[in-house]
């Protein structure tokens, strides 16, 4: 109960603070099994994607987040587990826990869509980072799933890494056309296609 209330408050707060405006450019907000993949500049990223989804989609959409950052006990752990129902993955190279791709595929099989940041970490530079290969492995495992690129504009400026106080700029989310893995598509091809689909949604650089 308290989790749902908190989630609702957080959604409203994110919308109020960022005036976030979803532009469904390449697809409609439909209840399909999807992986929303976005550029990553701020901790608020998945919150705004999540808040921008219509409530009935939001209930069946889980963010994918790094266990190392969120699982330090206390409020953060409660927030990520109980409010966002995140799929927490271990990003360390020498991990001994479950394989992140297995975890994501399992969530999709259970009928939940995902919010994924294929850059793997928050990006501090100007250019989009190269994608990690997990998105491809997930696509081979779940070929029927639609991969929807989502460009998040401005949120990195609202709350850049290291900042404590957000600046109330307006954010826009652009949802592009869904991608699915083609027959015979190789790993670099798919990753390249996904990355360009995301970049195509970015406004022209100034």
């Amino acid at each position: 109960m308290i989790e749902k209330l908190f989630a609702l408050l957080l959604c409203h707060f994110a919308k109020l603070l960022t005036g976030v405006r979803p532009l469904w450019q390449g697809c409609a907000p439909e209840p399909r099994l999807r992986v929303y993949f976005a550029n990553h500049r701020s901790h608020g990223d998945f919150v705004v994607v999540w808040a921008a989804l219509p409530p009935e989609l939001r209930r069946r959409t889980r963010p994918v987040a790094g266990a190392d950052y969120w699982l330090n006990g206390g409020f953060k752990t409660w927030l990520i587990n109980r409010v966002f129902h995140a799929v927490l993955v271990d990003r360390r190279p020498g991990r001994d826990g479950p394989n992140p791709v297995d975890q994501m595929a399992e969530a999709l099989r259970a009928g939940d869509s995902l919010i994924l940041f294929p850059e793997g970490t928050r990006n501090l530079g100007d250019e989009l980072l190269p994608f990690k290969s997990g998105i491809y492995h997930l696509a081979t495992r779940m070929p029927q799933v639609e991969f929807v690129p989502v460009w998040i504009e401005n949120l990195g400026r609202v709350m850049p890494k290291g900042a404590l106080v957000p600046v109330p700029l307006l954010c826009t989310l652009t949802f592009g056309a869904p991608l699915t893995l083609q027959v015979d598509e190789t790993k670099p091809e798919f990753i390249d296609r996904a990355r360009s689909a995301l970049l195509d949604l970015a406004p022209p650089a100034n």
Partner: protein
Amino acid sequence: MPTDHTLFNVFAAVFAALALASGIAAVLKWRLAPGASSAVIDNLNARINAWWWMVGVLAVAFWIGEGGIIVLFALISFQALREYISLTHTRRGDHRALMWCFFFFLPAQYLLIASHWYGLFSILIPVYAFLLLPISATLGSDAERFLERAAKVQWGLMICVYCISHVPALLTLEIPGFEGRNAQLIIFLVLTVQSSDVFQYVWGKLFGKRKLAPAISPSKTLEGLVGGVLTSTALGAALFWMTPFTVWQAALVALTINIVGFFGGFVLSAIKRDRGVKDWGTLIEGHGGMLDRVDSISFSAPIFFHIVRYWWV
């Protein structure tokens, strides 16, 4: 006539004009062939509906009094600055400077109006923000495109906060023989300049042929400009009784602020074109963003303020 009475009558007249406009727009929509739709008429209806809201909010602020007016314009500045910075390129190193803009300079500017401290009000942003913001940006240790970034932040603060704050600042002027009626100056300014925008739109849509500068603003025409500015100048002259001006003074002042206001819209259009967008935002249905609505006010308010302060105070 007591000022409350005057304000009541003016707002009643504006609401009556809006009712008339809504009526005309409804007839236009009704006369369309069944099933047909027209983007222009839909937009007209959206614009008029938004005007009801805007005039309603303004009426509530005036009913509350000086505090209501100051808070309203502070919120307008806040939204305008937000739209401006959202479309302007800044970097991570500017975060601290932006925090100062939103959380210090903006509220401080309006608090200075509330405390009638004209001396500091008039230099806070042009002097202190001008010097302190680039200092705070250097602390972000990022020299890339530094001058450009500093200039953009300062320019936005000037347009969205400093210039717009001159509207409520009219309340602080002490005009002999006009005591307690300063809110009517705001009505004169807002009604003249905003009606100029409306009349330019109407004249342009009805008679517009010669494009003024398609590279900057594709919808502005010479016919719209001349017809709009002259009509709203006549309106300004007709409103002389609510100001300390004579008829001719009112006409001249109205003409000046209408022309400056027109170029305000023009300058902000140039920025929009450069950034490749049509509107500053989506806050006001049919109009675009806040900055689309107040661009002409932000240019004309300081000029109007200084005209009144120089010759009538």
